């Protein structure tokens, strides 16, 4: 029996000590798979046959070497587009990126040019993943507009402009100074529309109908700042009123997932706006591309497309349905990629480059590891392993404190006798009568709040300080009998003091008792910690077995068997192990308990 106890104990102690070696995952902060994923081995049961596992498209993301050598593909729709690995440009030092280029060296190009960068993979599981997260970093040409707002030929589409104040002030006197509140006129026939032939002026919105005369100076604006007024410049406004005269993004990047095969389908999981850093206004005249679009210095913020995000659902027009369940509804071949469209009708001859880096797709499975995942997708096995640390530490330390106190009180009461004995034992008896758990709850609830980070330590001390009474009684009884023994009298006769007799003659005689009670006190301390943590009184920053069950309770996850069962079994196993060892030690130190052979 003690062998079983020892094996269990050694096993859990090993778990506790070697926790970071056994499991690489952070038990409380690292999402390892979909939420509430059952253990991976559950897949071999009939109920678990539809479960999937984690899959990562690119296990070495970052394009440190040419990605087309590793399964990524470049495909162009237009021959002017080309793709190449660029080892100089990267979102992070030391790696590379993939560059898509629109070559404009042969002359101005008008129109949109598209290329695709993608990777095809197999989804072999019968059920969909719990979640997918696509990631991508992009660097598009700088689209910073010139500081000029242009008035000139009328909006090509003849659209009505409703909010004119958004248009930047223009230089009404042609001297390159922009004055706020210049009188601005437009819509010369006051019909509310910018019809062909109307003159566009920009500034503070005048009250309708405007009476400002046509001013020839307003007709054209110096788009280059060089003092030359060109006819036919574009008209730009700040359509979304964000203060930016965006030229519109010259590049759009759309991330998609395709299902190949008979039931081919393609899903764009981004729209343009979610890729571009600035919202892209539609402009009336795409002449903006006159400006040389140069390589930007900075990368746009990384794009993360999480199937749990509402924006991804919105792009897919999904309200209730999970995007990952929709897309990966059957096993087969899938493609993850981006469509890059470069807009050009520029006079410029410089190439336009689009860089891509850190492109990856992570599919979170619906099953995971040895013990599955919890409500956040954290690894339960890691929690169990790290929880062993807390539970064992609390159990051993609290038991140690309790036994040390009990020994002290028992020795004092037993050896000193008389008034000391009477007072100490009365106190002990009173504490013994008071129900332990309610006292613990009240103490921790009151004191715990003021402790903050030291809460676990406080818990240990409080449990220890409430666990000495039984042992004190036992020690006292032993000491009472021991101190009447001849060897103590002999020591006394030889002139030994109380300290000497206690440490040399009495303690060695109750050392077995100490070990036995230490072993038997640990389960009580472990159970106390578990109960307090379960009630939410433990240290919530540290994972313990009681805290795990507390989380089950808080999240109403009583039906998640792989979360409910392991912590309880562990508590019971460790407690039983200590009880067994305690009983065995008892038989070892107390020969009268041994069976006669």
């Amino acid at each position, binding site marked *: 029996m003690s062998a079983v106890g020892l094996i269990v104990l050694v096993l859990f102690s090993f778990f506790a000590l070697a926790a970071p070696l056994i499991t690489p995952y952070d038990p409380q902060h690292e999402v390892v798979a979909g939420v509430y994923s059952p253990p991976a081995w559950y897949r071999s049961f009939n109920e678990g046959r539809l479960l999937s596992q984690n899959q990562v498209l690119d296990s070495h993301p970052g394009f440190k070497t040419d990605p087309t050598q590793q399964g990524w593909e470049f495909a162009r729709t237009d021959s002017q587009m080309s793709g190449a690995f660029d080892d100089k440009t990267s979102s992070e030092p030391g790696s590379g990126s993939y560059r898509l280029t629109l070559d404009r060296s042969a002359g101005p190009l008008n129109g949109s040019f598209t290329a695709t960068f993608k990777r095809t993979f197999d989804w072999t599981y019968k059920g969909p993943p719990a979640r997918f997260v696509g990631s991508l970093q992009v660097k598009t040409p700088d689209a910073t507009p010139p500081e000029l707002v242009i008035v000139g030929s009328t909006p090509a589409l003849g659209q009505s402009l409703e909010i004119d104040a958004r248009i930047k002030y223009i230089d009404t006197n042609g001297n390159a100074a922009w004055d706020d509140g210049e009188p601005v006129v437009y819509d010369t026939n006051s019909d509310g529309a910018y019809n062909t032939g109307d003159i566009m002026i920009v500034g503070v919105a005048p009250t309708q109908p405007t009476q400002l005369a046509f001013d020839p100076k307003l007709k054209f604006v110096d788009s280059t700042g060089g003092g030359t007024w060109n006819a036919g410049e574009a008209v730009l406004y700040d359509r979304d009123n964000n203060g930016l005269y965006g030229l519109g993004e010259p590049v759009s990047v759309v991330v998609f997932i395709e299902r190949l095969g008979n039931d081919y389908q393609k899903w764009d999981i981004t729209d343009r706006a979610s890729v571009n850093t600035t919202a892209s206004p539609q402009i009336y005249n795409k002449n903006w591309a006159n400006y040389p679009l140069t390589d930007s210095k900075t990368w746009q913020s990384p794009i993360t497309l999480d199937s749990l995000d509402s924006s991804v659902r919105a792009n897919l027009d999904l309200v209730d349905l999970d995007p990952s369940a929709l897309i990966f509804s059957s096993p087969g071949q899938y493609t993850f990629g981006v469509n890059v469209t470069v807009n050009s009708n520029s006079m410029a001859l410089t190439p336009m480059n689009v860089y891509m880096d850190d492109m990856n797709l992570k599919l979170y499975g619906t099953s995971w590891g040895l013990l599955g995942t919890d409500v956040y997708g954290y690894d339960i096995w890691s929690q169990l392993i790290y929880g062993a640390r807390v539970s064992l530490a609390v159990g051993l330390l609290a038991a140690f404190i309790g036994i040390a106190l009990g020994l002290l009180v028992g020795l004092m009461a037993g050896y000193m006798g008389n008034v000391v004995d009477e007072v100490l034992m009365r106190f002990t008896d009173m504490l013994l009568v008071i129900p332990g758990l*309610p006292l613990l*709850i009240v103490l921790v609830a009151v*004191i715990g709040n003021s402790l903050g980070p030291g809460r676990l330590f406080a818990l240990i001390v409080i449990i220890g300080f409430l666990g000495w009474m039984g042992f004190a009684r036992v020690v006292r009884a032993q000491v009472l009998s021991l101190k009447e023994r001849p060897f103590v009298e002999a020591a006394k006769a030889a002139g030994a003091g109380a300290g000497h007799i206690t440490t040399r003659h009495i303690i060695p005689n109750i050392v077995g008792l100490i070990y036995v009670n230490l072993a038997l006190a640990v389960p009580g301390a472990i159970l106390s910690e578990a109960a307090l943590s*379960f009630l939410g009184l433990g240290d919530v920053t540290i994972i313990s077995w009681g805290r795990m069950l507390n989380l089950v309770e808080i999240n109403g996850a009583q039906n998640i068997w792989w979360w409910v069962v392991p912590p*309880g079994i562990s508590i*019971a196993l460790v407690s039983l192990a200590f009880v067994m060892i305690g009983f065995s030690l008892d038989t070892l130190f107390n020969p009268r308990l041994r069976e006669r052979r």
Partner: protein
Amino acid sequence: MGFRGYLIKRTINTLVLILFVILLNFVIFELLPGQQGSIAAIAENPKLPQAVRKQIVFDEELRLGLVCGGTADNPVPCQIWDKFAKYFVAMVTFNFGYSFQTGNPVIQDIVQSGRLENTLLLLGVSSVIAIVVGIFLGTLAARKRGSMFDSAWVTASLTTFSLPTFWMGLVLILIFSFTLHWFPTSGVTPAEWIKPESAPPNFIAQIPGRISHLFLPALTLTLFFYGGYLLLARATVMEALSEDYITTARAKGLPERTVLFKHALKNASLPLVTAAALQFGFLLSGAIITETVFSWDGLGYWLYQAIGWRDGPVLQAMFFIIALCVIVANFASDILYGVLDPRIKYE
């Protein structure tokens, strides 16, 4: 010393214990920071004039026993003895103040809210079952000492001892509620009875619904402490079985069942009766946890909610009442022992 002297001694002992609990409560809750919270809110309220603020704070401190007289400008600090005397009177008269959570007097929330009944129902049912089943199995185990039956039940009771109560409850919910769909997961009564538009059915019609809600919490509590009775009954009956009167009974040709339950168990029942009283404190601890697991709207669940609310008045009232129950149960067990066993020597 006769029985009367014994009674007096026990009574004094009990009263000292109650005083000790009040003292303990006093020491613990003097540290509670939440009590000063409401005063701080008043003290910092900019809408009130300075003098008014001071007066309100003073009145509030006077009420809470933080100052003991004087005026707002010149308050007289409390002597610790004054404070304790006030506290003592409040506790003894069950004047626990007002719950932060409900705003009602705490004692009213305990007595009139139905929580007391719910807790007593749960405790009553599970302790009766645990005692009957534990003693019955323990007696049989003693009779068949060393058999498979014996070791199986001893192991089972040791195992349920080592299992955390709340975990047993969670596993029972997992099995009986989520897998088999036999019993509801939580609550005292079906949720639709609480809705205002539907009056709860009459008493007879309520019984099935109530039993289905009671079953799992009662089972959890029963599992929690039947083992103690089993082991105790086994030990005492085993001892009784070695007595001469058992041999006599057997020699008379009495059936084994009569020997076991009439002669052995009856003589072994004394420690069991007193243990039933002594187990009370243990039982209350189990009830706090069990009620929390099953959201059973009793005093234990209320204590759990009070933790979350930092409801000092409720916490100290509950602790005091629980401790009081245990002390009274102990007293009862001592007296019972004296009454039931004429052989006892009063010392």
